[in-house]
């Protein structure tokens, strides 16, 4: 190594980022090679010093518009997926997924639309206790995970949806959930505590509820 003797210009050119076209090729290669979404930070870590994967992604995404595969955003990561209209060609690739129970589907939707949400809140919305196995099925599918604990008495754990959930349902972010705006406008995502305490549900969770979903989705 003769770094200290090298003149400044050489050092700079050593670390000069490759041209944008080249960066686009690199992002393309990395995304094609990976089945999982890749974050911009990970792209940057794998590409040469000084590269700007975010910009390369903009170009790449445009290049694949209308093609058989697409560059999609999944949370704060990126992936290449086949175009949904070509699904009919892929019967061979279809993976038979375990059919989710109605309880699991509803619980998933409640976590997605009300996140972060506690178990007690899920039960309050469904009017029934969350059965054994429903939550851990969703955890195992890696569609939900633990969020921050609620800062209310008892500090209950909360649940939020994951990047895997967004990936599975083709959502860029939880803000793109279907019908979210309408539900919010209709007040159906408010956590309205039951009037009085006559229901025997006077637990502490109701007070905490306001800070939930709105905090996450409001921009």
């Amino acid at each position, binding site marked *: 190594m003769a770094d200290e003797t090298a003149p400044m210009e050489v050092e700079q050119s050593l670390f000069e980022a490759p041209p944008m076209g080249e960066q686009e090729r690199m992002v393309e290669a990395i995304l094609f*090679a990976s*089945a999982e979404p890749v974050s911009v930070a990970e792209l940057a870590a794998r590409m040469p010093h000084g590269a700007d994967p975010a910009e390369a992604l903009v170009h790449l995404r445009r290049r694949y518009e209308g093609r058989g595969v697409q560059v999609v955003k999944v949370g704060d990561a990126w992936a290449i997926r086949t175009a949904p209209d070509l699904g009919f060609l892929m019967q061979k690739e279809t993976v038979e997924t375990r059919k989710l129970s109605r309880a699991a589907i509803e619980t998933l939707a409640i976590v997605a*639309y009300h996140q972060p949400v506690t178990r007690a809140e899920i039960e309050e919305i469904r009017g029934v206790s969350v059965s054994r196995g429903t939550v851990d099925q969703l955890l195992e599918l890696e569609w939900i995970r633990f969020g921050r604990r609620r800062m209310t008495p008892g500090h209950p754990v909360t649940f939020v949806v994951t990047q895997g959930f967004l*990936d*599975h349902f083709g959502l860029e972010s939880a803000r793109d959930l279907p019908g979210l705006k309408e539900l919010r406008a209709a007040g159906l995502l408010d956590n309205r505590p039951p009037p009085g305490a006559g229901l025997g549900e006077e637990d502490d969770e109701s007070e905490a509820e306001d800070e939930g979903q709105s905090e996450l989705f409001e921009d």
Partner: protein
Amino acid sequence: MTNDDFQPDALSVSERLAAEALIVDVDGYEGPLDLLLTLARTQKVDLRKVSVLGLAEQYLAFVEKARDLRLELAADYLVMAAWLAFLKSRLLLPPDPSEEGPSGEELAAHLAFQLERLQAMRDVAARLMARDQLGRDFFVRGLPEDVARTRRITYTATLMDLMQAYARIRTKDEFRPYVMDRDAVMTLEQALDRMRGLIGYAGEWTELSSYIPEGWEIDPARRRSATAATFAATLQLAKEGQIDMRQGETFAPIQIRKRPHG
């Protein structure tokens, strides 16, 4: 149902059948709120305009009917019945100014809100599941390219492993890891799916027992579950007017056929 008014005393035959279908299906409900939602739909109005008083009466009639049939209702259904009876009296009696707590109208409004919210969650859950899904409508790279140059071993564990390990240590002998015990359970949805596919071929009277799927006839637990689910499914189909059912006498085989032009 032909009659929008709810009159517990004067039920037509079809209403009685519908009520019985509800009753038989009691295990199919995901709790009292779900049942209330189903009852609310029979009022055939926008959920926002549902008559909570009418709903309370429908629910109480349902519980009464279950009692007549000596069906055991889970405790939470009875808790809801007691609460609805209380709500009904609050709604009917003039407000007592010395009474503390929320008014009947407030309680009714909250119940209506809960129903609307549950229905909304159901709707968006359905929209969510109707979206294009990974592995069904769009696909990941089938051949992720891992250039095998350096072989690095990483160790992995899931959150479930971690939590179960901790639970195992902290509870020593009492711990039994969670296992899916549902091999022997056929759900109503499964049976309905299957029956809907099959009834098209049932122009003639056929025995219900012949609809038990293969692999479910031997093991008694599986057979029991499949029989119950299939029976519940036929009641549902009968209620929808898709099939006719008949039974020669008590304990005789139940027979079904597709209703012509059903």
